[in-house]
């Protein structure tokens, strides 16, 4: 979101899912949507079955890559190298969209100069992707009538995640593949309401409606409505909170629906810090690993079926969630809990119902103004921005960039000069294997929710290795081995995966109680997004027999 906001002024994917069906070229970059966003991938497959070309950029030949016309198996952490090489090829082949660049962007000259050294040969040498594959993708993307560039955590879970996103935005600006039907930039959000959470201001630098905390005019609106004084400085994101815990500055914590004791990179550190707070309160629906550390646990509601409200998905669509069952036992609606806390803290927030809260939000957030509950119900959900109750915006963003009249185009979208940087932790003799982490189809994040149903395909955690590495290490499929990094070690059975190249191993964090993979990962964070480099750690694998006795 940081990258998209910096480039276009709005922190959201530019296109609706239906537009993927209209694209003739689709690039899935750092996304295994077949497993992680299966129903979005249905829209991609509809396009593919209609003749669209699919390119998949991923170090692993993943389930998604199997559907691709071309799989580009780049080295972990070389996305900017690849993107800059693609850009240079597009420019040199005369395929850059000159008219769009001129009318809608800024900073092209500097950008073009910065990618000049990224010849196809250099790109191949750094990324490991054959030059002719890079060239094919470049030409296909630039020449497409409408192209979708989709990404997710493969791009953002790096120490330079924001730069990675900017490098993709650059490609869209270079080719005019944004701001019109079917062409766009689609970040696939990981959780059902991470988009909505950010839109509602659950970010340290944003007020609801994606308005800046530091924007005096915006803040004044909230001060007035809430009869309070909103602090004029940005707060801390999650990683900064952990740093503040380490400094002793953050002493008490309320955690709502997040499980950092199992989801954080370098998780031992996270557990130490959480355990040593003066007061830790956890609001959740299950006794997670984090809840186990808490002084007080507040049992909340599974809001998607036990509460009434809204959530926002990856195509910016706000949809109603509705209460179908009652929370069990003493669990209470999250909103009730928050109102009760507020009252104890001396603020009597009196809302008749949840709809009234939403109406207050609409009065303060222009991009949500036109979507009262009745209209969301009538239309089955509405994409933001929606400025009034009798208008709807196009399903894609940034159409202004194509406006005939320069006065209507708004701020030109800037190219960003981004520098290729390898992952923070290099592989070396002691830890010679690159560990990258991700997800599987049947499980979800730390496995708290998805562990509740029995899937025949769920086999527990494994360390996925290439056939070559298995042979070199002398390990067999199913054999339990020790995987260690500078930060910790875990044991897991081997699973041989032909989609992995030698030197690359893969694990998930779905089974932290059995195999706590985040003991291995590194908390190297992009300071702008606060996201850690889950995608690149250095590990070694040892046979258990070899290390005992």
């Amino acid at each position, binding site marked *: 979101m940081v990258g998209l906001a910096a480039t276009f002024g709005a922190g959201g994917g530019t296109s609706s899912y*239906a537009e993927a069906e209209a694209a003739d070229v689709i690039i899935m970059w750092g996304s295994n949507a077949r497993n992680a*966003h299966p*129903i979005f991938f249905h829209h991609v497959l509809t396009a593919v079955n209609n003749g669209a070309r699919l390119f998949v950029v991923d170090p692993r030949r993943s389930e998604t890559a199997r559907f691709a016309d071309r799989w580009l198996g780049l080295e972990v952490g070389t996305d900017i190298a690849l993107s800059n090489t693609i850009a240079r090829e597009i420019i040199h082949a005369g395929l850059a969209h000159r008219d769009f660049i001129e009318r809608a962007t800024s900073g092209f000259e500097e950008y073009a100069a910065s990618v000049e050294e990224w010849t196809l040969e250099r790109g191949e040498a750094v990324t490991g992707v054959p030059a002719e594959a890079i060239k094919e993708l470049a030409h296909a993307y630039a020449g497409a009538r409408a192209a979708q560039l989709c990404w997710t955590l493969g791009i953002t879970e790096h120490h330079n995640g924001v730069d990675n996103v900017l490098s993709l935005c650059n490609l869209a600006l270079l080719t005019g593949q944004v701001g019109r039907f079917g062409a766009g930039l689609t970040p696939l959000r990981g959780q059902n309401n991470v988009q909505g959470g950010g839109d509602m201001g659950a970010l340290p630098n944003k007020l609801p409606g994606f308005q800046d905390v530091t924007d005096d005019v915006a803040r004044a609106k909230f001060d007035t409505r809430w009869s309070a004084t909103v602090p004029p400085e940005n707060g801390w994101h999650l990683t900064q909170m952990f740093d503040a815990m380490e400094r002793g500055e953050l002493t008490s914590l309320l955690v709502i629906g997040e499980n950092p004791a199992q989801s954080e990179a370098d998780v031992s550190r996270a557990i130490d810090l959480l355990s040593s707070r003066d007061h830790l309160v956890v609001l959740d629906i299950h006794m997670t690993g984090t809840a186990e550390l808490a002084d007080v646990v507040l049992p909340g509601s599974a809001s998607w079926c036990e509460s009434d409200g809204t959530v926002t998905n*990856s195509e910016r669509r706000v949809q109603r969630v509705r209460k179908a069952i009652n929370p069990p036992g003493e669990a209470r609606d999250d909103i009730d809990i928050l109102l009760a806390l507020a009252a104890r803290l001396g603020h009597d927030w009196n809302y008749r119902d949840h709809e009234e809260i939403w109406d207050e939000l609409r009065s303060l957030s222009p991009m949500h103004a036109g979507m009262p509950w009745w209209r969301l119900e009538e239309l089955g959900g509405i994409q933001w921005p929606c400025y009034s109750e009798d208008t709807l915006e*196009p399903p894609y963003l940034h*159409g202004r960039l*194509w406006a005939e009249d320069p006065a209507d185009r708004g701020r030109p979208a800037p190219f960003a000069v981004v520098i290729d940087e390898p992952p923070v932790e290099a592989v070396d003799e002691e830890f010679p294997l690159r560990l990258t982490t991700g997800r599987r189809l049947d499980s979800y994040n730390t496995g708290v929710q998805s562990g509740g149903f029995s899937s*025949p*395909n769920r086999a527990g955690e494994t360390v996925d290795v290439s056939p070559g590495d298995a042979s070199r290490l002398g390990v067999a499929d199913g054999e339990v081995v020790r995987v260690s990094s500078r930060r910790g070690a875990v044991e897991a059975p081997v699973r041989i995966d032909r989609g992995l190249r030698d030197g690359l191993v893969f694990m998930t964090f779905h089974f932290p109680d059995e195999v706590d993979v985040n003991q291995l990962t590194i908390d190297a964070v992009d300071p702008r997004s606060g996201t850690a480099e889950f995608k690149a750690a250095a590990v070694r694998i040892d046979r258990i027999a070899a290390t005992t006795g």
Partner: protein
Amino acid sequence: MTAIDDTRPEIATVEAMIDGVTVRVAEGTTILDACGGRGCGIPTLCYGETITPRNACRVCMVEVEGSRTLVPSCSRPVTEGMVVTTRSERIDHSRRMVLEFLGSSVDLSLTDHVEEWNAEYGADPTRYGPEAARVDEPVRIDNDLYVRDYSKCILCYQCVDACGEQWQNSFVIDIAGRGFDARVSTEHDVALPDSGCVYCGNCIQVCPTGALMFTSEYDMRQAGTWDEARQTQVDTVCGYCGVGCNLRLHVQDDSIVKVTSPPDSGITSGNLCVKGRFGFQHAQNRPTAD
């Protein structure tokens, strides 16, 4: 340089006559849709809202002037000047026979509308006698998520197509065997856990006869506790990934008993993944203080 190109090509229309009434519809509209779609009075079985039909059941047949045989209304597009009749002795006879053929060979007890159609067309599936060959397959329970009862299967192909190119692209099932011995099958008829099935449940949702059924529903029906009259349906959004699929929760006695997705959802078209389909269970397994 043009700006945003949102123009869609103009859609051509055709004029035809249906039951003596002139209609004008968009080119490519099927006869069934021209008559009002599913529920317009023409019976359908292998026609699903989200599946392009194989027109295999042959219950939706109508007469088209100039055609030697009857024509499947679910699949035949209306053409300029076409003359269609939707009820006649020949049509009614054919519908009655299809209902009798199916009713005498498989278990249609859970198929919607069959009772009323049998009455409307005078279909008597018992007229083939007790010795009439039936599809008698044992119920297959080889996983915890859903049950296959092929003695209810009418071979409408919707599950095959939902699993195949039309939606899921997993291609786990297809029709094996031929003639009366044809059955929906995994490769080499292996158990589901040994197949490529990803338990998305998209096949279950499109099955018109209950041959494919969620284990939660199956167990309750076996126990005699399944009661659709006491169920409500609540539409909400899945709690897992960021796609934001629409879920239709079927609730009985304050408990979610199964999950479908609205077929007209622009996001899902009635499809879900294993987490959306079956991942609700954790919400109901939270222990209360004791």
